[in-house]
């Protein structure tokens, strides 16, 4: 983090960041993990995304500055794929400002950890489950397939695309001072508020979705009451065996036994 917190902005004037370049980078960022691998992780994807901005370097695409910058940006890198937009913007700016290579490399290395952990906490652990639960709630409220799909996809992608667009914008404008963007309230407090919203949504969604999936009959019949009793009991068992057995494996075993019993009895 030291490179992130002690950096000072370069004294050069802001280079042009045309709408065309921004759009090209944004579209490419959708494929930032297109070549994710165990050798350089998303390094090649970073180079691929930043490349349109590098074309403005002296000498253009055939120039030495372009090739050196592309080589630097295609080396090992890892971050959350959406929040990598901050790194893409900041590193593109640093390259266009012709910041010394050693400093760019140190800065690039320092970005990996924070962008990974903040993104995982905000998106994978909070936003995605929350949107999933909204989808399940819509299903439980007897939403049509189209309503469930649109509700989930529009909500999720509003957050997803906002993060990528904001990240690129903030990264480019803050350059090497991008660490301050990590203090954005959404990144800092978002997981807490989204988590609380998800808890409310989960509590409403589970019984409603279960009821619809059961066929929507009398909720006080023997089968729904049985489900209402058995589900929390099984959940407690799963919480207790956590770390030793993943839930999907337990479900697989239960359902295979159910199939065998039903077809052989």
């Amino acid at each position, binding site marked *: 983090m030291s490179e992130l917190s002690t950096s000072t902005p370069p004294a050069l004037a802001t280079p042009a960041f045309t709408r065309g370049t921004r759009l090209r980078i944004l579209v490419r960022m*959708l*494929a930032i*993990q297109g*070549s*994710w*691998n*165990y*050798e350089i992780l998303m390094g*090649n994807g970073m*180079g*691929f995304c930043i490349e349109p901005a590098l074309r403005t370097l002296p000498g253009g695409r055939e120039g030495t500055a372009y*090739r050196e*910058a*592309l080589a630097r940006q*295609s*080396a090992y890198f890892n971050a959350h*794929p959406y929040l990598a937009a901050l790194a893409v913007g900041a590193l593109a700016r640093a390259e266009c400002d012709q910041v010394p290579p050693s400093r760019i490399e140190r800065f690039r290395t320092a970005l990996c950890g924070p962008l990974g952990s903040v993104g*995982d906490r905000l998106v*994978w*652990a909070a936003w995605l489950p929350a949107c*999933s*639960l909204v*989808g*399940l709630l819509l*299903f439980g409220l007897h939403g049509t*397939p189209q309503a*469930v799909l649109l509700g989930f*996809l529009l909500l999720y992608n509003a957050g997803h695309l906002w993060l990528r667009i904001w990240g690129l914008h903030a990264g480019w404008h803050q350059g090497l001072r991008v660490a301050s963007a990590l203090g954005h309230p959404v990144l800092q407090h978002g*997981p807490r508020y989204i*988590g*609380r919203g998800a*808890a*409310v949504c*989960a509590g409403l969604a*589970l*019984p*409603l*979705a*279960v*009821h619809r999936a*059961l066929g929507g009959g009398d*909720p006080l019949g023997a*089968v729904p009451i049985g*489900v209402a009793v*058995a*589900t*929390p009991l*099984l*959940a407690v*068992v*799963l919480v207790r065996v*956590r770390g030793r057995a993943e*839930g*999907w494996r*337990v*479900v697989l075993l239960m*359902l295979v036994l*159910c*199939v065998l019993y*039903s077809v052989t009895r």
Partner: protein
Amino acid sequence: MGLEPAGASVAGVAVLAGVLGLDVVSFPQAMISRPIVAATVAGALAGSPVAGLACGAALECLALETLPVGASRYPEWGSASAVAGAVAATGAGPLSLPHPGMFVVAVVAGIVAGWYGGESMSWHRRLIARFARRRLGRLAEGDRRTVYALQAFGIGADLLRGALNGLLFFLPARATALWVSARWSLPGDLTRAVTITAVAAVAAAALWIDFHAISGTRRLFLLSLTLGTLLVVIGV
């Protein structure tokens, strides 16, 4: 029984599985690969979006348990949900829930295909690493054609991986589901109850564990769970 093997074409499921498998990591990560979306689309392709949606909701409960974090291994639900949704929709009417036997086998097929898909993602990543290793020299020279080639190779291979996953599981899963459904002896409501209890318990356990991180969240969950149950009882 009225279960017709007609429904989604093998090619249709393979193409859909490829596109959905691609969305998981490579492009564009818009979460069209989430089971609740993917299985519904596959169900619609097979003639019953509602059956696909019911299967997708069940698999979505399981997907809540796994976080798709970086290099960790997790089931690949995109192509798996294409298989599961198409199987669940086989023989179901456009607005009807899946046949109980089909439903159980579809969820089982989704889990197995998801597990295999997760393994295949790991092989895919190793394959790109091997492809990249031979080109590290040219990458270090800043050759843009190499950068493009690596991206194209990774995305193309991932599309193929998802499609193959769909091909590998769809026909056997559908044949098994038809065979099982013809011999199914448990009452439909009991079958659904067993399946739904299992997946809902996984979701509840996963959420309970996740909510531990934020103070007061578990209490909110329990309060809204009570409210949700009341809404069901009063018939909302």
